[in-house]
């Protein structure tokens, strides 16, 4: 993913870059403001393109199935896709919900509500589930869920999973016959024995504990299923009546609301105390007091000892300012011709002064006399001073060095002291 994210999307690149093309890196003639805008556009476009690509790749690679325990869309061994598909093939719509509010919205008397692993649900959420009108199937509930939704059953330990006979008088269960059982065990609560609660698939030890309890609560059937394997893909194809049991438990109504609790679903506001409720009362006031101290300290430090005194500042202009500006212009315009002409003229002026040539002598005369005085070849000096102007950086630098060398040669041989090579005139 990161590789994809680093590469800008080609479509966005072209739309973000202005029409004048790939020179967005800042050609010298372009104003800096526009340059920056182009850069911002370019980066923004690249980021947007990367996002789109990531999204597309994510959407394409995301499987149609999910993973997760007892998910109706999960095809993994612990998923429940098989039973959900069988139910759908029978015309029973399976709808997966994640929150209790959705449960309250979707459930009706014509739908069975399956509650998968209700662990650590708050009372308000359990209340919402309890308020649903349709039949309820609780898969491996924890104690609070059990107490609230199926008070006729009590948790009674766990046992190894195995196949077992129903051993009870409930027709819908006995019709399924031997099925996957074990897991969490339940016992009928005191006072529930007289009610219509039925215990099936008893544990091997004693017949008062079993992994399936059917009862009636609030006028609707509530099934407590201790063995989640009954609904799982891995055991649905078992040779016994597991599949039949699952379908008989879930298929009693025209639809199924499959509630897979989302751990992130907040229970209620009153349950989670805020930070301010957790800290001691004294700390809160101390913090307020410290804020007051901070304000007072600002007042203390912020008060100036008298108003500011104005200082009339002088103008600051560097004397070489115009000259530096000219140098920058030369560089920007790559004015090789102008720069080399200036260097040559100034050097010839100095040479003429040193060789006692009148100021109005022609450059050729000065060059000839310089060649004579220095012993350098006249053709070389002519090329240096009168040849074509250089056309690139290297040529210009070489020319400057040649001029300096020629001047040094003349200075070395001429006995007469003259002005320094740096200044054409010197102080006069």
């Amino acid at each position: 993913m990161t590789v994809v994210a680093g590469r800008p999307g080609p479509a966005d690149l072209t739309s973000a870059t202005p029409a004048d093309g790939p020179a967005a890196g800042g050609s010298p003639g372009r104003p800096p403001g526009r340059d920056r805008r182009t850069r911002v556009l370019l980066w923004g476009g690249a980021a947007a393109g990367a996002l789109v690509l990531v999204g597309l790749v994510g959407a394409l690679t995301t499987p149609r199935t999910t993973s997760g325990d007892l998910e109706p869309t999960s095809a993994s061994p612990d998923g429940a896709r098989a039973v959900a598909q069988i139910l759908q093939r029978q015309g029973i719509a399976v709808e997966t919900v994640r929150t209790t509010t959705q449960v309250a919205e979707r459930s009706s008397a014509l739908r069975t509500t399956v509650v998968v692993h209700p662990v650590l649900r708050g009372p308000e959420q359990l209340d919402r589930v309890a308020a649903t009108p349709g039949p309820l199937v609780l898969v491996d509930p924890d104690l609070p869920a059990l107490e609230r939704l199926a008070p006729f059953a009590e948790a009674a330990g766990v046992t190894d999973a195995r196949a077992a006979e129903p051993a009870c008088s409930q027709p819908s269960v006995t019709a399924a016959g031997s099925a996957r059982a074990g897991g969490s065990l339940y016992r009928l609560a005191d006072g529930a024995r007289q009610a219509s609660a039925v215990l099936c698939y008893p544990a091997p030890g004693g017949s008062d504990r079993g992994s399936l309890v059917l009862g009636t609560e609030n006028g609707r059937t509530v099934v407590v299923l201790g063995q989640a394997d009954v609904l799982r893909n891995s055991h649905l194809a078992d040779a016994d009546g597991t599949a039949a049991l699952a379908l008989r438990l879930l298929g009693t109504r025209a639809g199924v609301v499959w509630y897979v609790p989302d751990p992130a679903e907040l229970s209620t506001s009153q349950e989670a105390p805020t930070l301010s409720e957790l800290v001691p009362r004294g700390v809160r006031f101390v913090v307020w007091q410290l804020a007051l101290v901070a304000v007072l300290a600002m007042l203390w430090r912020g008060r100036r000892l008298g108003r500011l005194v104005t200082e009339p500042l002088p103008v600051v202009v560097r004397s070489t300012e115009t000259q530096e500006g000219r140098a920058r212009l030369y560089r920007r315009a790559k004015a090789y011709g102008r720069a080399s002409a200036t260097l040559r003229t100034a050097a010839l002026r100095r040479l003429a002064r040193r060789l006692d040539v009148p100021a109005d002598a022609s450059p050729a005369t000065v060059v000839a006399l310089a060649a004579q005085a220095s012993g350098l070849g006249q053709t070389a000096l002519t090329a240096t001073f009168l040849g074509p102007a250089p056309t690139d950086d290297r040529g210009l630098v070489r020319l400057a060095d040649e001029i300096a060398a020629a001047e040094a040669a003349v200075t070395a041989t001429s006995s007469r002291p003259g002005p320094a090579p740096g200044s054409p005139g010197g102080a006069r």
Partner: protein
Amino acid sequence: MALTGRVPLLALAGVVPLWLAPGWATFVGWALLVLLAVVADLLLAGSPKALTVEREPLGSLRLGSGAQASFVVTNRGPRRVRGVVRDAWQPSAGAADQRHRLDVPAGQRRRFTTRLVPTRRGDRLVEHAVVRSVGPLGLAARQRALPAPGRLRVLPPFTSRKHLPSRLARLRELDGKAAVQVRGQGTEFDSLRDYVDGDDVRSIDWRATARRQQVVVRTWRPERDRRVLIVLDTSRTSAARIGDAPRLDAAMDAALLLAALASRAGDRVDLLAADRRVRARVEGVTGGGLLPALVEAMAPLDADLVEADWTVVVGAVRQRLTQRALVVLLTPLEAAALEEGLLPVVQQLTRHHQVGLASVADPQVAEQAAARGDAYAVFGAAAAQRSQLDRLAVTAELTRAGVDVLDAPPESLPPALADHYLALKAAGRL
């Protein structure tokens, strides 16, 4: 009104009761306590309105030296005033420590001294002294700015003073006090004296020798009572900085050395500072009063960002000079400014006067002109040499018009100008 550091400390102490008995009552109660203490302290503090500040007059000083600025605080109120007083000088006055501890009992006065080492030439001002009167609890203070205007005039430093003795010695050589004299056009007869070995035989006065029957020579001395007018250009080109100081300051230095030398040589020195109008002038001051008058006139001058109007300047010069004089223009040799401004009108000066132009050169230009290495440096060198060529061209034009041009870096311009003056003097061209 102002708080002291004790107020937040007192508020901080409120943490203890708040921890022991948390509640809004404690919080508000402690805040009220602090407020009450502050108000009581304010009411008990001595009133700064009852104070008056008198500043002792300050003279002037050369840039680079220090001064003691004193003021007296008088308490006319019924209560003692304790706290701080701040002497609010401008930053460039260089006050090392502006704040003084203040403790003036009722009806008494105290004197405070601030040491100033100004960092810039010109008038450094102070408008007020700020008094902060702290209450007896030290929690709160009453603050007031008391008017106490003052001015310290900072004069040009005249660092080229060190060149003066050697130039005066050269002047004495010219002055007939030395034996060897050559008669020149601009020299005048001084005296007759006996010939001694080494005297130039050409200076023997044969007529006097015949009368005295001893060999007698004439001595000469340079002319005296000539006029020298120094024109200081205060336009934009003088604002440019070389190193840390504007060109104008270097030009002032050169002007001061020339004025000191010329006044010792018996010439009359006047000064004119101008850009579009005459900014300062010193006229008709002779003897010991000249240099103080000059520095006093120069002290408040700063270069303005205006173009010099040479028509006005030349007009002012001609108006002031009736006899032939040496006119020294202290202006930067900026090709564009001079070609358009000075060159068209300079003939009006050279027709009647000896004109010299002294310019403060920037040594950085020569440095940059010699730079080599890469294309960047060579372009820079080309630009520097271009400006040098421009200066040469305008120098040639000025020379053709009869102006002597001096172009030297800040530290060597004053002696160069003095030497130029001495050369003119020796040649009798004044």
